[in-house]
C-alpha cells in the first residue's frame, strides 16, 4: 500500500507522548460559575439599554409638518416605501448584481400600496365625519389622472406648508379633497389612532408591524433620533447600540464595506456587500481546504507560543 505524502496543514502527526490528568467537568463547572458571576456583575454595574419605542402619535405631535409631508409622499408615491419595489410593490426593479435581480425574482410577497394602506384605509376606518366622508367620496370617484393633478398641485405648495391651530395649510389651489385628507390623517396620527389602524388592518390579533414601521421609516423623525444615537449606516451604525453600550461589534466587517468605495456610493450596495460577505464567510468556512490560506498558521508560528512547553521539552 502506497502511503500518501504527509501534508502538514491537512494531516496531523500521531501523538505518542505523555498524557496528564485534566478534569473537564471541573473546568466546565468553574467556567459556568465564573461567567455567571461576571454576567451578574456587568448587569448590576451597567444594566442594559431600553429606549422607548417611538409612535406615530409622538412623531406627528413633535413634528406635524414632517408627518404631513410624509403622508403626502405616501399619497404621491414619492416615499421610500412607495418607490421600493419587491417585496412590497413593483414600483422599482430593486438592486441588481449584474443580471441578478434577486429581490425581483423573489417577487412581491408582502404587498404594500402606500395610497391604500397608509392613507385611504386608515381614513376610511375613522368614525363618520361629513367633510372626511365627502373627501373620500370625491377621491374614490375621481380618475387616476384627476387624483394625480390634485396631489401634484398640493405637493407644489408643500414647501410652504404651515401648521397652526391644529390645521395643516398649503397655499396651493385646485387640490380637491387632498387638504382634507392630509388634515384628517394628521389629526388621526396625533390622536394615536393611526398607530392602531395600521396594525389592526390585519384583524383583531396581530404580531406584524410591517406597515407602521415602513410608514415611520419614511419620515425623518426616526432617522434624526437615530443620528443622535450614532446609528446611521454611514456612522457604522450597524455595530452601535443606543446610549454608550457595546453593540454588535462582530458586524464590523459587514458595516465596514458600506463606508468604502465602491460600495459607499453604489445604489446596489446592499446586494454587493451581502455578496462580498457571503464570499468571505465561505472562505472562512472552507479555510481548511484552501491551499495557501490554510498554511498561514504554520508559517506565522504563533502556535509555538501555545505549545511552548511541548517544544521546549
Amino acid at each position: 500500500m502506497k502511503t500518501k505524502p504527509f501534508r502538514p496543514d491537512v494531516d496531523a502527526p500521531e501523538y505518542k507522548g505523555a498524557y496528564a490528568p485534566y478534569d473537564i467537568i471541573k473546568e466546565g463547572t468553574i467556567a459556568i460559575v465564573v461567567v455567571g458571576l461576571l454576567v451578574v456583575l456587568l448587569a448590576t454595574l451597567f444594566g442594559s439599554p431600553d429606549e422607548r419605542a417611538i409612535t406615530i402619535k409622538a412623531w406627528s405631535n413633535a413634528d406635524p409638518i414632517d408627518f404631513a409631508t410624509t403622508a403626502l409622499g405616501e399619497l404621491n408615491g414619492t416615499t421610500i416605501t412607495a418607490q421600493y419595489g419587491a417585496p412590497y410593490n413593483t414600483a422599482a426593479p430593486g438592486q441588481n448584481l449584474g443580471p441578478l435581480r434577486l429581490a425581483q425574482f423573489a417577487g412581491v410577497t408582502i404587498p404594500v400600496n402606500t395610497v391604500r394602506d397608509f392613507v385611504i384605509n386608515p381614513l376610511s376606518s375613522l368614525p363618520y365625519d361629513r367633510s372626511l366622508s365627502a373627501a373620500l367620496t370625491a377621491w374614490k370617484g375621481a380618475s387616476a389622472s384627476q387624483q394625480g393633478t390634485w396631489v401634484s398641485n398640493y405637493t407644489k405648495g408643500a414647501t410652504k406648508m404651515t401648521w397652526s391651530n391644529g390645521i395643516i395649510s398649503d397655499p396651493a389651489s385646485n387640490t380637491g379633497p387632498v387638504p382634507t385628507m392630509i388634515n384628517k390623517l394628521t389629526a388621526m396620527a396625533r390622536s394615536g389612532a393611526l398607530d392602531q389602524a395600521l396594525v389592526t388592518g390585519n384583524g383583531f390579533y396581530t404580531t406584524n408591524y410591517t406597515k407602521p414601521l415602513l410608514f415611520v421609516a419614511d419620515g425623518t423623525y426616526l432617522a434624526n433620533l437615530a443620528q443622535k444615537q450614532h446609528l446611521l449606516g454611514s456612522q457604522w451604525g450597524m455595530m452601535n447600540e443606543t446610549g454608550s453600550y457595546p453593540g454588535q461589534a462582530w458586524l464590523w466587517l459587514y458595516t465596514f464595506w458600506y463606508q468604502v468605495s465602491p460600495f459607499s456610493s453604489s445604489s446596489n450596495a446592499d446586494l454587493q456587500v451581502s455578496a462580498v460577505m457571503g464570499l468571505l464567510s465561505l472562505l472562512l468556512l472552507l479555510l481548511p481546504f484552501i491551499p495557501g490560506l490554510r498554511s498561514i498558521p504554520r508559517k506565522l508560528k504563533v502556535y509555538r507560543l501555545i505549545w511552548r512547553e511541548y517544544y521546549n521539552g
Partner: protein
Amino acid sequence: MAFLWSLAALIPLDNYGHYIHWGVIDISVANFIVVVLMVLAFLAALFLPFPGRNRRKESR
C-alpha cells in the same frame, strides 16, 4: 430576592456614547473597549503560564 426589586444599574450607560474617528474608522468607545479586551485576552492566553504543569511533570 427582594434586593432585585430595587435593582437599577449602578452606572447606567444611557447617555449618548463617545466615538473614536480615525480615517474611515468610526467606532464607539464601548465597542473599542470590547475589541481591545478581546485582543488582550488572546495575548494573555498565549503568554501567561498555564497552571499545574510543573506539578504534573514531577509526577511523571
